[in-house]
């Protein structure tokens, strides 16, 4: 057992856990942030994606101890002041979810790719960047539409803010 300290959704946390504790279990079981899902347990499905220091990572494939000292953002940290994040809103508007199980990972992956590509995202790039996220309802088409819509809106918002 060791004390693991990190920042999660802007809040400093410090909790005892076994060294072998995966980050996803630390988030779900220790911090009760159950929005991050365990889908496959074999590192393939991406339902567990969170951001570590601003980059999308699979929280099922790293120890909480490896994330110690870092800044973690989960799906619970996206909405601000009761307003859905533009990516969440776009998933809702474009029916980008069916059963919803993969959605937290899809949304965190979408935010990550929009952070990297901005408004210049195109469909091909979105599909390539969804390589690590599996939707077993196979609803990819509307997920791609939602991400493109969000990228456009966030790009427009970014341009307005810059003007």
């Amino acid at each position, binding site marked *: 057992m*060791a004390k693991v300290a990190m920042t999660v959704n802007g809040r400093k946390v410090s909790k005892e856990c*076994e*060294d*072998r504790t*995966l980050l996803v279990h630390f988030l779900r079981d220790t911090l009760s942030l159950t929005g991050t899902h365990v889908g496959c*347990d*074999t*590192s393939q499905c*991406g339902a567990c*994606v969170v951001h*570590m220091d601003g*980059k*999308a*990572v*699979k929280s*099922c*494939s*790293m*120890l909480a*101890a*490896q994330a*110690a000292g870092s800044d973690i953002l989960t799906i619970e940290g996206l909405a601000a002041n009761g307003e859905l994040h533009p990516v969440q809103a776009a998933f809702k508007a474009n029916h980008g979810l069916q059963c919803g199980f993969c959605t937290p990972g899809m949304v965190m*992956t979408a935010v*990550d*790719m929009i952070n990297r590509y901005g408004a210049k995202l195109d469909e091909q790039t979105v599909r390539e*960047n969804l*390589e*690590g*996220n599996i939707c077993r309802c196979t609803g990819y088409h509307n997920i791609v539409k939602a991400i493109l819509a969000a990228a456009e809106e966030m790009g427009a918002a970014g341009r307005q803010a810059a003007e």
Partner: protein
Amino acid sequence: MYATSYHRASSVADAVKLQSASDEAKYVSGGMTLIPTMKQRLAAPSDLVDLRHVAEMKGISVNGSRVRIGAATTHYEVSSSAELKAACPAISHLAAHIGDPHVRHMGTIGGSIANNDPAADYPSAMLALGATIITNTREISAGDFFTGLFETALEEGEIVVAVTFDAPAKAGYSKFPNPASRYAMAGVFVTKAGDGSVRVAVTGAGSNGVFRHAGLEAALAANWSADAAAGVDIDATDLLSDLHGSAEYRANLVKVMAKRAVAAA
């Protein structure tokens, strides 16, 4: 996962000290192979020594044609480095197509080559670029480094610190990813040096891991073209046969990937 003890190394010397304190310690960098393997209980190191925060193992430098990549540099960092893209775009392209974005944010070049997965991408690049693998104790040429399936010349406790190579005049990489795992079923890295010498390395297809292909090298040295690669007979004898494809199928993939790699170079 079996119980393990986690240690974070602050320097290469610190990492060696932490590793040597236990008989069954393992280094972990991005952990994109090791952690999933531990989850399956196929590996059970008593201790993990984390190299991800060792500053002297990070970063990319390009001096003229000389390239140095720190072992703890992630695939994402390799793929997005502007100076590397200018010096050797083939390795940027390779790094940009490993696994998925999440894996590329964590996985490192040092971890990939130290693991020497027979279907990993980087070993072919190291071999075709004639890279030198720098460890905490010595320098090893790529040709001597990769010794078999998941086998390398690394001694117990030895750490890959960086890799260096001279950016070639031309280089290209093409792989045929397994549709499910995205690991290479065949990947071919081709280089042509300033003096005209050619190296061709093949990953994913060899039954003993990454290897150089003399026939493709000779044909491309004589005539650097996709057509020249197309004319080479690829012997299936030492190629891998498994549920994903027969040796003969992989032999054809090697030829097609070689053609595409030359066309992309």
